[in-house]
């Protein structure tokens, strides 16, 4: 080992440890904020320029699954159109008796804040995105983020003046109290390292089947109830397990989000033990 190698190795190791300590004490926050503010236009240009190539590579990588997915989507589209027609009828009836008023109060249109995704976490083990609104726009940690189609995206975990980081529900650290809409079976939807959603703690006796919708239950106060999370794609039940293994598909693709909505009217409640 040369003296120069030793010097550089020591320098990097010491710098890494110092920066880890500084990050823990949030001393690096202004630097991170400034760096992202300065570099986000450059990232936007690079991202937009290379997006067609990235899409092309992704399509090649997914070629085997695309045909099957296309068939499934056509079938699902037909089913959704039929459900939409029924839902319209139901909505008209509900409106007549005033039930939709509660939904309106839950999600008033002006309480959403539109945000663009400006960066993504660069590691394979986390699922986080940065959005271009921050504490200066009234965004606070704990606020929830949904897609434009109103399905759950995640939670704001860190805010800076002009941007914020959002932990997606597919992140391995994410856990959302949830229930199956049809059977009201409760559980916790958690992310895993493969970027998938798993509904945990669903008892063996609960009625859960493929195609059921999963929504937030509101338990714990971290999320408002009734927000769509996804649809059950696979249920595995073995007699020796305490719980069923329930896999959930998010309705939107969280890996290539571009715009999201921050629900400004909801503030998470911290429930203290009695």
């Amino acid at each position, binding site marked *: *080992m*040369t003296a*120069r*190698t030793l010097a*550089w*190795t020591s*320098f*990097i*190791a010491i*710098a*890494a*440890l*110092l*920066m*880890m300590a*500084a*990050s*823990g004490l949030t001393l*690096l926050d202004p*630097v*991170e904020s400034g*760096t*992202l503010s300065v*570099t986000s236009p*450059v*990232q*936007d240009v*690079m*991202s937009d*320029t*290379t*997006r067609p190539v*990235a*899409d092309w*590579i*992704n399509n090649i*990588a997914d070629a085997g699954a695309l045909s099957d997915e296309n068939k499934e989507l056509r079938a699902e589209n037909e089913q959704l159109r039929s459900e939409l027609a029924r839902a319209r009828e139901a909505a008209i009836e509900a409106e007549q008796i005033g039930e939709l008023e509660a939904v309106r109060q839950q999600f008033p249109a002006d309480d959403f804040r539109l945000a663009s995704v400006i*960066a*993504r*976490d*660069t*590691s*394979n*083990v*986390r699922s*986080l995105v*940065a959005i271009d609104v921050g504490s200066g726009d009234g965004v606070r940690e704990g606020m929830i983020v949904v897609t434009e189609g109103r399905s759950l995206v995640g939670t704001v975990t*860190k805010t800076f003046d002009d941007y914020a*980081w959002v932990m997606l529900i597919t*992140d*391995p*650290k994410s856990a959302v109290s949830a229930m199956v809409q049809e059977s009201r079976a409760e559980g916790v939807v*958690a*992310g*895993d*390292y*493969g*970027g998938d959603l798993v509904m945990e703690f669903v008892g063996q006796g609960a009625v859960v089947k493929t195609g059921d919708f999963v929504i937030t239950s509101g338990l714990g106060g971290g999320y408002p109830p009734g927000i769509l999370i996804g649809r059950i794609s696979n249920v595995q039940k073995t007699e020796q397990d305490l719980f069923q293994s329930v896999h959930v598909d998010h309705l939107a693709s969280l*890996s*290539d989000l571009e715009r999201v909505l921050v629900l400004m009217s909801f503030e998470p409640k911290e429930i203290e033990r009695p």
Partner: protein
Amino acid sequence: MRYVVGGSLSFLLAMFQASSVEQVHVAGVVPNVMLVMLVCWLVVRGLDDVLPMVAVAGITLGLVGLQSPGVVLLALLLAIAPAGFVRELHFVRSEFLLAVVLLFAASLIYESLLLAGVMITGGAFDLRGGFGDVVLPAAVVNVCLVPPIHLVMRLARPAAARNRYSYS
């Protein structure tokens, strides 16, 4: 001058990784072009040339991502430095083969360290899922990028060194 060029390239490389490469998902993981290039450059030029690039790339990638710059820097150092020492053992003559072996090992180390960081700080403790869905696929996908990137690296160095069969 060499440091300025290397530092600038590393900065651009980290930005490219953060803004462009992260859009590409192969086998469920994002290829780490930055790590591939650093390891290929390590094989071609040695640890002395790569360590300054590791410093710039690690800090930049940490600052534009949510991982702490220190964590990324440490993970990169622990992935690259052992590879540099193994290179000096000259246990294979082929540069390309060495790049493949070192990159596979470096990817495993890098992704494992980030995975461990997440698990320690409250992420799901799922070793099988973590290795099966992230660490191993990431290492394999990175290795697939070696042929084109290693070729570019070979062409980027002086002609006399380029024409040698083995590295020095």
